[in-house]
């Protein structure tokens, strides 16, 4: 035995014992400052006269809310002043943040940025629709609908990346799902059959991704990109040679009807937006919650995350890494495939060439913006869906911004969100790395 005195090692976490300092980052202040300048130019210098009506309910609603009328110019000026004040608050937080607790500072910063975004949006809507009226419920309803495929795609991305396989093939999974859903639903006349076909199509795309990246160790990003091109080519070819020959029988899918949920759908604003949707959207709500609970509170999720973080550690406790990866990537494909079904069984009733138009890549951005968390990824997808729908609504009421310019909006939001707000995000440690046993 040793004679030296035993010292029990200090088991407190290292981070709790190290002194903490705040790293000053001017990124938020600068970004907000840029928006204040934009606000000043748009709402004050180029301000428009006239009143904007925000319609909070439609004629069919049980509970009628009064319209909300805002004078465009004075709203613009007031908001610009408020935005400048909020920017000042953020600047002060950056300089004197160390006097507050880290938690309080983060909360204050988040509240300021959310308030800033909301105010900017309000003034922008008032400005763009001066003299017209904006259907608020319509805007939000469309947001949820347009986000549905993005959310399914993002969930597929989250599952796949959490288990350690980068899923660039979401676009291909969506497109294959859309195609098969249209074809099968048209032939059988049953939208449910189409839904299942979409899932199968997504799984098939995943099989290729999984086989090449897990078994043959091909670079996962390259396989994903190639798969997207392959699916695009294949569906376009089949569309021109097969579907368009007999559109009546092969490309006229029955759509899911809107199904208002009793009671819930009568709640003002929330009801029409969330609970007057189709089956696919309700399925999406369930999927988000199921994936969240599954990932963080079940054996399946614990093992899945272990494999994506440290595959060798998972292996040493008897988890079979590559089969786990294979089947979960397949599952991810099924979920993304459901998103594809939305295009042909909900939004329109027929397949068109390249109809997903990059939604899969936006979903991929939502995965990263949402930091590989299903709930946050859902909100990210909703943000992109909102940007898309805003462009639709403003185009319909005739805004002063050229519609070609507005078409960029969802992508500008994507770039700003991923590059500006997220910056470097740490994903699952082993994502993209094949697991090779000797």
């Amino acid at each position: 035995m040793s004679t030296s005195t035993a010292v029990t090692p200090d088991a407190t976490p290292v981070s709790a014992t190290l002194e903490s300092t705040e790293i000053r980052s001017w990124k938020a202040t600068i970004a907000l400052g840029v928006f204040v300048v934009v606000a000043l130019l748009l709402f004050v210098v180029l301000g428009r006269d006239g009143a904007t009506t925000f319609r909070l309910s439609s004629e069919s609603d049980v509970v009628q809310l009064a319209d909300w009328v805002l004078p465009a110019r004075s709203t613009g000026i007031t908001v610009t002043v408020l935005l400048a004040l909020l920017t000042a608050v953020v600047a002060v937080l950056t300089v004197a943040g160390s006097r507050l607790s880290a938690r309080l500072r983060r909360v204050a910063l988040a509240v300021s940025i959310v308030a800033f975004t909301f105010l900017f949006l309000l003034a922008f809507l008032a400005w763009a629709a001066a003299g017209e009226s904006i259907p608020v419920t319509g805007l939000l309803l469309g947001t949820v609908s347009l986000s549905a495929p993005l959310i399914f795609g993002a969930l597929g991305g989250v599952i796949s990346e959490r288990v350690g396989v980068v899923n660039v093939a979401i676009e291909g999974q969506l497109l294959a799902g859309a195609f098969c859903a249209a074809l099968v639903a048209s032939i059988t006349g049953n939208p449910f059959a189409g839904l299942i076909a979409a899932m199968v199509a997504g799984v098939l795309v995943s099989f290729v991704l999984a086989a090449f990246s897990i078994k043959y160790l091909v670079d996962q990003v390259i396989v994903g990109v190639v798969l997207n091109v392959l699916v695009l080519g294949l569906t376009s070819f089949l569309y021109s040679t097969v579907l368009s020959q007999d559109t009546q029988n092969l490309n006229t899918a029955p759509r899911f009807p809107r199904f208002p949920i009793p009671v819930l759908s009568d709640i003002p604003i929330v009801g029409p937006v969330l609970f007057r949707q189709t089956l696919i959207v309700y399925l999406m709500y369930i999927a988000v919650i199921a994936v969240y609970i599954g990932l963080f509170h079940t054996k399946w999720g614990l093992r899945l995350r272990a494999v994506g973080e440290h595959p060798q550690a998972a292996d040493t406790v008897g988890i079979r890494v590559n089969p786990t990866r294979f089947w979960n990537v397949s599952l991810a494909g099924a979920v993304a495939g459901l998103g594809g079904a939305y295009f042909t069984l909900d939004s329109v009733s027929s397949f068109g060439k390249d109809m997903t138009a990059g939604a899969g890549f936006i979903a991929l951005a939502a995965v990263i913006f949402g930091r590989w968390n299903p709930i946050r990824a859902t909100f990210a997808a909703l943000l992109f869906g909102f940007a898309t729908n805003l462009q639709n609504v403003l185009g319909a009421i005739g805004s002063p911004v050229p519609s070609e310019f507005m078409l960029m909006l969802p992508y500008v939001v994507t770039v700003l969100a991923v590059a500006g707000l997220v910056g470097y995000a740490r994903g699952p440690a082993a994502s993209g790395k094949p697991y090779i046993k000797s």
Partner: protein
Amino acid sequence: MQLELRGITKRFGALTANDHIDLVVAPGEIHCLLGENGAGKSTLMNVLYGLYQADDGEILLDGIVQHFEGPGDAMRSGIGMVHQHFMLIPVFTVAENVMLGHEQTSFGGRLDLDAARKRVREISDRFGFSVDPDAIVGDLPVGVQQRVEIIKALSRDAKVLVFDEPTAVLTPQETDELMTIMRQLRDEGTSIVFITHKLREVREVADRITVIRLGKVVGEAAPTASNSELAALMVGRAVELVVQKDVARPGAPALVVENLDVIDANGLKVVNDVSFAVHEGEILAIAGVQGNGQTELTEAIMGLQPRVNGRVSLGGQALTGLSVRRVLDAGVGFVPEDRTEDGLVAEMTIAENLMLDRSHGAPFVARGSLRRDHLDDFAEDKKKEFDIRAQSVSTPAGRLSGGNQQKVVLAREMSRDLKLLIAAQPTRGIDVGSIEFVHKRMVETRDAGIPVIVVSTELDEVVALADRIAVMYRGSIVGIVPGDTPRDVLGLMMAGERPAEVAA
């Protein structure tokens, strides 16, 4: 449970890592597997644990032949392992790590975290560990992470427990405690395999010793064998265990570090208000358990850390704020702690690696093009001088053994006009012959009047080389003490305590 390995052979291409190894571990004994780095100890244990499939031979438990397809099978048969590189998921909590792979679930398939927490507390209390089941593993000190590994193995009712180089990350006192735990487990009937290359520990705890060299069992030894007997058996020749050096003749202070802070990406001060000076002609060793700010400190001196406060100067010239290139030009040689990650480009040849930090001009580059002939001559010289064992200087560095790779790094750094040499973990994972060589060169550098900083987590190395020792704990220097300070005092300092006799 009795463990028996019969004729285990494992080949990687042309290399035979294990050559017909036989080993018997009786229940209730601590069996030491002694061997140099690269002797094949870890390979053997990975075969036992089902991570590798043996090319030949069989594994028997209580006389019954076992077939392990993977670690899951080995675990179910009662084999547990505390890995050298912890097999823990850093972003999970302790309880999640312990339950992973044999999760209990409650109603509706939800994870039963409470059961896992209870299990962690139970085992933790039995051995007097104070481990919080809800702490995030990546945030725990390495010594505690190792205890989580032990809890993980015990929670699966392991009857044979393998410890793979467990003391590399521990303070001497923690090492003593680990040995107490090993004895306690042995007395409860667990068979223990203890893999190490440290003679002191072997002699203290082993019931039986098996020595492995170059993939073969070369003999058994009793725990009463002397250090030099064991070392000779392990290396295959007589080894000089102490580094020959004269008393240092320190000159003027050369490197002066004042109030240095390093702040990481999360705003934590990983180096906190560190001040010290290194004199010409002395070796200052920075000791401490891994992860207490040593890496960040050396990187800050090199200009590799983005958020640094304080002053660093070398011979009066300020180094803070300079680019890495300027720091190198100022005469700083740097041997990084991870040679495969930061020290070498594995795909490039030995010669190319030797000119890596002088790629911007003389003597190897003239008018934008490489002077190949000159480089090859230079590389041949260095290959001879540093005894780099390779076919030629155009062999890719990645194909060399750890020891020879380290010699390439050392040759590159020491062939410039140095005013300071910083060597981080200079002998980690290399063979005894190379260790002797590296130590000799360090002392020669010192004797040439150059200040040397050696960062090491191995107390043996610190004690062998240092003229003065600075001990770091959680980002701060606990104290700077003379090179002949007793081990247990250093051990206490590595745990953050400043013994009374050590002045601040």
